[in-house]
């Protein structure tokens, strides 16, 4: 096992930031901690690195218990959102820093730093200063620097959070390829579900200091365990309704099957993903098209139905037939997931 954390707790002042987080990451696996800002995922990462100490719980790296070790002795590579490059050192010296503190001889350290820079695609930039590089380049330097001492695990804290959307997308594909080549056990913290789903072997959703769900990207997308997960990883509609005599839930003008254990008259809340809604042009339809936003091969359609606002994703070809203010019928494409309202 590459990384094991058992029942971590952490409090800052009066705030309980981590409330019992346990997770494990296989050697060579790439796992994302995904969740909203302030949910505690960065704190978990910093605890793994030894930059914060948990109030209770255990951290194991490669079968060794490390909670008593400081960050310098844990052998982790850490990449920060704002790069944290040493401003007063040239790029090559940044990358060689971890080798220098390990007393690797300077010629060898430099050779290895140059090799890593070439590997991350920055071969010609070793004599530059960090502030002469673009954000994407800086983050690749930071990654090379973290990899130089050949860490047991690589921890990335919102590594692309400060970059443009375009650069982000390129870098994350690149990161995944690099991961497959280097094979380091990697944990990536991000609040971007697309990033998490596209690069990781497994996604752990963290919310309010607790793990909400832990599973493969397809499990997370296809079988979200809670309303929060469904909302976080996809575009969803939440409708409320009552279970009717026919055993179907009527909510927002739609009828849907209900989960086992519900009775007639129960008030339930249903979470419907935007691509599960099916639209059909129909002058007598109850849905009214409010807005059509073209995306790549699909379009996002905002509509109102019986006073409720809904979002649907439909193929572009179909969206082209829609007009703003036009009527449509709305049907459920697939059986929806339904969750009972709490309390």
């Amino acid at each position, binding site marked *: 096992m590459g990384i094991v954390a058992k029942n971590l707790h952490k409090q800052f002042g009066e705030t309980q930031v981590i409330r019992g987080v346990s997770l494990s990451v296989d050697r060579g696996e790439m796992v994302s901690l995904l969740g909203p800002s302030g949910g505690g995922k960065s704190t978990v990462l910093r605890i793994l*690195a*030894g*930059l914060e100490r948990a109030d209770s719980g255990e951290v194991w790296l490669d079968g060794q218990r490390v909670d008593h070790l*400081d*960050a*310098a*002795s*844990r*052998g*982790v*590579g*850490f990449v*920060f959102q*704002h790069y*944290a*490059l*040493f*401003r*007063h050192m040239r790029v090559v010296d940044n990358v060689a*820093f*971890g080798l220098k*503190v*390990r007393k690797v001889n300077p010629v060898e350290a430099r050779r290895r730093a140059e090799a890593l820079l070439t590997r991350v695609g920055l071969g010609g930039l070793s004599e530059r200063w960090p502030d002469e590089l673009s954000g994407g380049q800086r983050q690749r330097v*930071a990654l090379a*620097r*973290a990899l*130089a*001492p050949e860490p047991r695990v690589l*921890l990335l804290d919102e590594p692309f959070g400060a970059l443009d959307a375009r650069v982000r997308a390129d870098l994350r594909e690149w990161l995944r390829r690099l991961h497959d080549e280097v094979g380091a056990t990697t944990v990536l913290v991000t609040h971007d579900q697309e990033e998490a789903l596209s690069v990781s072997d497994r996604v752990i959703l963290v919310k309010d200091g607790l793990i909400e769900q832990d599973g493969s990207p397809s499990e997370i997308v296809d079988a979200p365990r809670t309303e929060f997960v469904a909302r976080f990883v996809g575009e969803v509609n939440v409708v409320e309704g009552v279970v009717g005599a026919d055993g179907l839930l009527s909510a927002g003008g739609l009828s849907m099957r209900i989960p086992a254990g519900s009775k007639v008259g129960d008030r339930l809340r249903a979470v419907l993903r935007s691509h599960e809604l099916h639209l059909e042009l129909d002058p007598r339809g109850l849905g009214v098209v409010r807005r059509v936003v073209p995306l790549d091969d699909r379009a996002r359609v905002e509509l109102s139905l019986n006073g409720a606002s809904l979002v649907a994703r439909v193929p572009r070809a179909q969206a082209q037939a829609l007009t703003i203010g036009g009527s449509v019928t709305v049907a459920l494409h697939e059986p929806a997931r339904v969750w009972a309202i709490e309390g």
Partner: protein
Amino acid sequence: MVTAAAILWVVGLVGVPLGALLLAVGAEPAQVVAELVEQGGLDALGRSIVLAVFAVLVGGVTGTLGGLVLARQRFWGRAVLDVAVDLPLAVSPVIVGLAFVILYGRGGWLEPVATALGVKVLFATPGLFLATAFVCLPFFVREVALVLEEVGTSEEDAARTLGASEWQVFVWVTLPQLRGALRVGTLLTVARALGEFGAVLVLGGAIEGRTQTATTFVHTMMEERHDAGAFGMSLILAAMTVLLVQALPTGARTKH
């Protein structure tokens, strides 16, 4: 219009007096040199420079540590310390001198300590050192704390995860970050140490050959009707200050 007024204001306030000083010295250069030499001006200037160097060394070390504590530690009483650091700027140096006189004078709390150590504080060199260290206290602390708060801890954290010991982090990451702050702190401290008058007068007593500093020398010369010596020393001090300000990095010059 505003620019012209600003220039006029600064020239009138700074340039004209400095020009007057320059003319006064230029009118009788031989007399100026003679009085500086004969009345102990060079000795006083040397003492002031030694005090300035001392203030930089003490301030540099204690200020860096103090700045680190203020910027990086959260502890009970931090707010009090934060305010206390600025007191030397707020309180008149004469008052400070007087407080030290009470402390180390006959019957003062610290008089037995000084006596036991065989150190004479008042009207002696230790008094000058105390006065100078006190008035220069804020500069390094403030500069260092400001920069540390600005740069945050992520570079230091990065160094830690790369295997650096706390000492290596300090030497290879924190100190280089402080280069600018230490430079500005040095310049401000030197300027203040050279220019300090009230505290060194009260604590030192301006005794020729023993506790006379450049500024108290100017005062003594004026009182003794050796105007030429006073003009000469004033011009030297003014010139040194101008050179110091020129050495300040542009950013720091606009900040202060």
